[in-house]
């Protein structure tokens, strides 16, 4: 095994406890030095609404979402959008280097017990170009529920300004199973304004889902 980012040989010592449980092993794919380049977000001091780092009180963005009548997603993110993370996203999503899809598998651990893990799908045109779905790639080691479908949009979110992003129209539709679990965790790669995730939440509600909806992303 070599580190996915720097290509140096990877030494993994799985802890004994990990070997003794029935959970599948997800050994780290990045070496300790490369993983240390990315800045994790401390959950204690993150915004309770959107997971923004160093904002123990509800941040201005979330207050705006709340005042516009949205039920907050209580979003949690794992890493900040630093220069190192931008380089990772550029290599993974921009260049389309699918080898990186499992880079954070050992960090992105979520239990699917009593909850459905619903990834936000990419647009059909983007999937056709990339050949893979970046979010499904990142969370591919988990048991996912593919409830959401996205229609093609004219301009990708990444090429818009903040104001334009917030004005984006709904492009998700949802199809629920007969007996959906009581909780849903929406999964995305990047939380910027929250627009996409709140659209996904609205699509689930429109399809008749009544349970609790929260969300996670790799980056905030």
């Amino acid at each position, binding site marked *: 095994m070599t580190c996915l980012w720097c290509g140096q040989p990877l030494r993994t010592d799985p802890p004994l406890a990990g070997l003794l449980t029935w959970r599948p092993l997800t050994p780290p794919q990045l070496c300790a030095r490369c993983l240390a380049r990315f800045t994790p977000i401390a959950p204690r001091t993150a915004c309770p609404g959107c997971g923004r780092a160093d904002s123990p009180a509800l941040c201005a963005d979330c207050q705006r979402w709340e005042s516009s009548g949205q039920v907050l997603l209580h979003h949690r993110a794992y890493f900040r959008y630093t220069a190192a993370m931008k380089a990772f996203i550029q290599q993974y999503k921009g*260049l*389309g*280097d*699918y*080898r990186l899809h499992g880079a954070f598998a050992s960090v992105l651990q979520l239990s699917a017990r009593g909850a459905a893990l619903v990834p936000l799908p990419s647009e059909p045109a983007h999937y056709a170009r*990339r*050949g*893979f*779905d970046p979010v499904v*790639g990142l969370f591919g080691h988990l048991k996912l529920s593919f409830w959401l479908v996205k229609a093609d949009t004219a301009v990708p979110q990444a090429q818009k300004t903040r104001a334009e992003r917030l004005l984006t129209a709904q492009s998700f539709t949802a199809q629920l199973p007969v007996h959906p679990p009581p909780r849903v965790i929406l999964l995305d790669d990047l939380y910027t304004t929250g627009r996409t995730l709140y659209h996904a939440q609205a699509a689930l509600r429109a399809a008749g889902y009544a349970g609790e909806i929260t969300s996670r992303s790799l980056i905030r």
Partner: protein
Amino acid sequence: MIPTGMQLTDEEVQKVGIVASSLAQAACVAGIENGRCQRCQQRSLVALPDGRQYCSACLTMGRVTSRTKLYRFPSGPSEGGTLTWSGTLTGPQAAAAAAAIASVTAGRDHLLWAVTGAGKTEMLFPLIAHELGNRKRVAVATPRIDVVLELAPRLQAAFEGTPVAVLYGGAEWPAQPAALTVATTHQLLRYYRHFDLIIVDEVDAFPYSQTPMLAAAVAQANRGPTVYLSATPPKALQRAVRRHQIGVSYLTRRFHGFALPLPTLVVLPLKQVPKRLSPKLSRLLQAAVQGRQCLLFVPRIDWLAPLAAALNTQGLRVQTAHAEDPARVATVQAFRAGEFDVLITTTILERGVTIPRCSVLVLAADDRQFSASGLIQMAGRAGRSQASPNDPVWFVARHITKAMLSARHQIHALNAVGS
């Protein structure tokens, strides 16, 4: 733009807007065929969830997948160019250049084995002028972008009025095909059978030496002989020379005519380095900065800060530089201006740096990071000026390794040939 001799993917063709009439002349091949990427000829394919494959070797140049189409545009002779440089070569330089011209005319590959600081670039001028005179296309390629940026203005000054294309990652593509091209070896992937002569500078430098794709890129972009330039040629080239498969010319003296400084091997316990320096090592460092500046090479980036702190307490003015340091260029410039005594650095500065009066000390020279060729390059930073050709070089280590002995032996052998 006119894509003469280029090899472009359908995405690149669309992006730069190539007219249908020149597209019709291009040969179109599938991006991946027979388990091989057709752009870089490597077999490092990765599967995508939708059933396609992509090439991970040349990914940084834009992804080639099994659905990609590659267009190979036809090439032709150049409009030529003339040498406007008015300097003169020394006797050995002229002889080496003549041997290279003879090899190239005979269609043979050639190795220019020139010691560090021999004046390699000037030696290329007659060769390039000879080829351009015959309306050939010439490329000077090197694995390092900083070498491209240094070479390009020098070549443009020597061939005034001749169009020179400069290619590196992020640079604008030339609108017109140029007679003379200066490029990183990666950029040659965008050409197919276009050049009549490719000169590869620093063949043994990273990443060319570790990346078979780059040798394949040179072979594919070329339709004539290749000339290799190195102070420390890799084993495969040395073998080809021994078997008379390629031509060779040696340049064993520096332009100033003095021998290369021979490294002194010093065995010292280095257990407390980099935090503390033993008295012996301190004395050695004091001797290194006596009337000179000192380049101090270390094997690891995390040694830089503690070592700088330890040297600071001895009253030396110290700065550090490494590959990911954004202020690297400015630091080296300040060092060149003599603003401080010791520059601590990793292997990143082993090539292309010329400091007039500068001693070299390689700390932990027995580290696996340091190959024989790397050590020769580092030792080659010393004694580059006419005023002080005998700057001292030390390899300080806990043990003497094969690489250290080999480096010393090779320098000794080159000096012996030269005298």
